[in-house]
């Protein structure tokens, strides 16, 4: 296994003659007007996709995106420019544009760019799906299609897709650090339409991670397809959801999206540096039930949110955000870390070379507790049990969040009873996390399906969680009383 920095240097050096001397020279231009710090972010991204409809391949696709983003920092202020062209002249122009956040007269700044290796490895591009013949990938979609159709006679349509991406990044900073990464990412998605007596129900699921064909040994396409079909058929018999304040049990795994929305975003340091988060100035204070410990961990093997280095070149790591209910720290990018006088947390991410760096989550997890999941359900007289979700949104400033539940059941007298549909959960991050009264021993990582959006930029993330009881939360159903 070669070092990712070496691989990245080989790619950009081989095709575009980008070597340490070129990087030093561009950084020197970037800092020539008095910027404090500069970085070059080279990116090459190649993805392949196959879409499946009507029991056949609808289309095949391939995209190649490459370019460089150049950032110059002066105090807390940022000058940014990018170029899709990796010709020296175009890159020099971008460096000059970004340099203008500095206001001093031009002067040369010598930089000594020194490549550094990446020691720990959480994924590798060996056996990447992109190297496989397309027929292998088509076969996976075919298997998913058959399994979904065989699940139930009401399954009248199956759409599926498979995507694989290989992203190579190289970060070169004015402190001399040069570091790279090669990030594979795959995702298979299945959508099933169940049609019964004119009633249409659609379910969608997807999964994947930073790995190759081995994913399908762990999660065969048939398994994902049957699970999707099961959810669609289940909705046919689902009852109207109750409306109002109720106890809510969140199942292990996918429910981590609640954590991501309810608290993760509010702990991103840019909001806290500006005092615009409801968690601003609260480090060391209780912000959740003592049962709650939350970490953001970019080092989980092959998980969708994992990274060896962040997009500022800092090493990824496991960060404890909340420990037994006490706020311990924020997710930092370099500008925020300097503001708070702390070290980097490896959380500076961006969607592409065209975008600003922001503090972002990687894999956000709540650690296991001591309650048996069955006991948690048994403890609820009347409430709801939520298993899978299709997305959420948070208002960072006041902590209000919403998310939509795609598989949920009523709990009556301690037992899971009828499936319910059209369920929305509405809450306030700190309020809800203070209302966590039981935490299960059954921690699980969600399958790799989540995409996190912030300020128009999307990055892949992971979530994980044990079964949790929230004593009261607003359930946005349709059935009043």
């Amino acid at each position, binding site marked *: 296994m070669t070092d990712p920095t070496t691989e990245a240097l080989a790619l950009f050096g081989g095709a575009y003659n980008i070597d340490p001397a070129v990087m030093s020279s561009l950084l020197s231009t970037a800092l020539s007007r008095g910027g404090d710090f500069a970085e070059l972010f080279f990116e090459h991204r190649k993805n392949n996709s196959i879409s499946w409809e009507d029991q056949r391949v609808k289309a095949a696709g391939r*995209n190649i995106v490459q370019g460089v983003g150049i950032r110059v920092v002066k105090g807390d202020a940022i000058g940014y420019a990018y170029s899709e062209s990796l010709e020296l002249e175009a890159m020099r122009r971008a460096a000059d544009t970004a340099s203008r956040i500095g206001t001093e007269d031009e002067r040369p700044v010598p930089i000594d760019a020194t490549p550094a290796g990446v020691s720990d490895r959480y994924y590798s591009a060996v056996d990447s799906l992109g190297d496989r013949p397309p027929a292998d990938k088509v076969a996976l979609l075919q298997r998913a299609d058959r399994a979904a159709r065989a699940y139930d006679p009401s399954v009248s349509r199956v759409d599926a897709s498979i995507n694989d991406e290989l992203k190579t990044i190289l970060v070169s900073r004015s402190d001399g650090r040069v570091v790279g990464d090669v990030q594979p990412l795959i995702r298979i998605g299945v959508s099933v339409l169940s049609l019964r007596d004119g009633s249409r129900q659609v379910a969608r699921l997807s999964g994947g991670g930073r790995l190759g064909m081995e994913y399908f040994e762990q999660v065969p396409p048939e398994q994902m397809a049957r699970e999707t079909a099961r959810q669609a058929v289940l909705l046919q018999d689902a009852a109207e*959801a109750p409306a109002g304040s109720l106890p809510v049990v969140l199942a292990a795994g996918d429910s981590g999206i609640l954590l991501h929305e309810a608290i993760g975003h509010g702990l991103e340091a840019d909001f806290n540096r500006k005092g615009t988060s409801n968690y601003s100035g609260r480090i060391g204070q209780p912000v959740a039930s003592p049962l709650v410990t939350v970490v953001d961990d970019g080092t989980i093997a092959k998980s969708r949110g994992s990274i060896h280095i962040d997009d500022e070149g800092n090493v990824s790591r496991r960060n404890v955000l909340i420990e037994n209910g006490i706020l311990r720290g924020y997710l930092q990018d370099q500008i925020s870390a300097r503001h708070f006088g702390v070290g980097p947390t490896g959380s500076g991410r961006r969607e592409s070379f065209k975008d600003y760096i922001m503090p972002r989550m990687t894999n956000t997890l709540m650690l296991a507790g001591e309650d048996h999941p069955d006991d948690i359900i048994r403890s609820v007289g009347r409430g709801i049990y939520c298993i899978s979700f299709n997305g959420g949104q948070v208002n960072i400033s006041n902590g209000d969040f919403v998310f939509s539940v795609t598989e949920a059941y009523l709990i009556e007298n301690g037992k899971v009873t009828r499936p319910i549909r059209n369920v929305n959960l509405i809450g306030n991050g700190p309020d809800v996390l203070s209302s966590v009264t039981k935490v299960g021993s059954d921690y699980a990582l969600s399958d790799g399906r989540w995409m996190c959006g912030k300020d128009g930029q999307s990055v892949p993330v992971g979530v994980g969680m044990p079964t949790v009881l929230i004593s009261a939360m607003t359930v946005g159903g349709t059935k009043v009383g």
Partner: protein
Amino acid sequence: LASGSLIDLASSVVDYARKAGADQCDVIAHRYDESSVTVRFGEVEKFLEAGSRALGLRVINGGRTSVCSTTDFNDAALRQFVADAVALAAISEPDECAGLPDPALFATGRADALQLYDERLQSLTFEDRVAMAKACEAAALAEDRRITNTDGASLTARAGEVALVNSLGFAGGYPSTSISLVVEVMADDEDGKKRNAHWFTSERLLHRLLPPEEVGRIAARRAIAQLGARKVETRRVPVVFEPMMAASLAGTVAGCANGGALYRGATFLADRRGLAIGSSLFTLTDDPAQPGRAGSRPFDGEGVATRRTVLFGEGVFEGFLFDCYTGRRTANPTTGSASRGIESLPTPSTSNLVVQPGETDPTAIVAGVRDGLYVTTLMGFGFNPATSDFSRGAAGFWIRDGELAYPVTEVNISGRMDAMLAAIDATGTDLTWFGSTAAPTLRIAEMTVSGT
């Protein structure tokens, strides 16, 4: 920007593809300059300036389709890219519905009348743009002493061009501009929570942009108005949507009137064409010919001439938006609604979506409600197009005895979209544009509001 060169580039890629063995193909290419600046507490926080370009190629060979994109315009790289794309099409299976439009449908008119390009944007200097953002934020901060923090004001301007060329002889392109200004500010509430609000203005033409100070003042007033926000009891009541939220509802409905959702069976509007679904007050149109609007386009993503389409006429569902593929799949003509991303196949989409205004003054719409919710914020993604089940987080104001009584937060509104459209019992005179959507105030006679 000379648009000839981009069309020439796209044409040469079409030629390469034909020579590489493609039966049919089309190429979309774009190029734009973007600049944005964010000001926070009166200082430049960040700026971005860059020129961007990309090119997408669709190959259809014996009904087999591939779609590829690249940002590398080097001639040798382009030839390799084209060869790969043609080879990739062989992976797909033949689809009799895949194919370019009938050339009789190609657009022939010029884009000038649509006023998509404003050369005055090019003359705005960096200092001009900083000054606009500063004026906007300063007005927000000055509006009320209870405004204690700001997320800054951002001004973004883009000028660029798009070109579309296909192997049946269509070659078109046009320049366009856009400019937007957004600000977000916040106030501290008594319970320790922050009440934030943003406001924005987004246009193609500089003279249509709201004055920066007005944008700032509106954002500040909206934040202050949320101070003291609380939950309400769960109950069924009338719900009034301010124009921006009515525009959001319109977008949700239009997503169901889409040929893609139709052939996939994933819309509650399937099999309901010609039926009165909504109240007679509800008319929804897609109008690509509105001069100077964000969604206006002289031809669609396949080169087809665009035209106005009525989605709902006085409550009756009139039809779907189609591109060529979804039209052929469902035995309908294309409505000239193809949208084409660089990386993706054409797909039907709205251009400018307009909810027809009514005859009721917006204050009268509120005045007609004894107890109800006035919605100024919607959150989350709780809508199922297949069943029309709608459930979203909301915030706004409680209406009591015809007036906005107090701010409301952390509630949910839910219902079925077909029932909601049928229950529209008032539409305002206050048609307001938000980017590519325009809507007036709307009232729905009854929905479930979930709270405590």
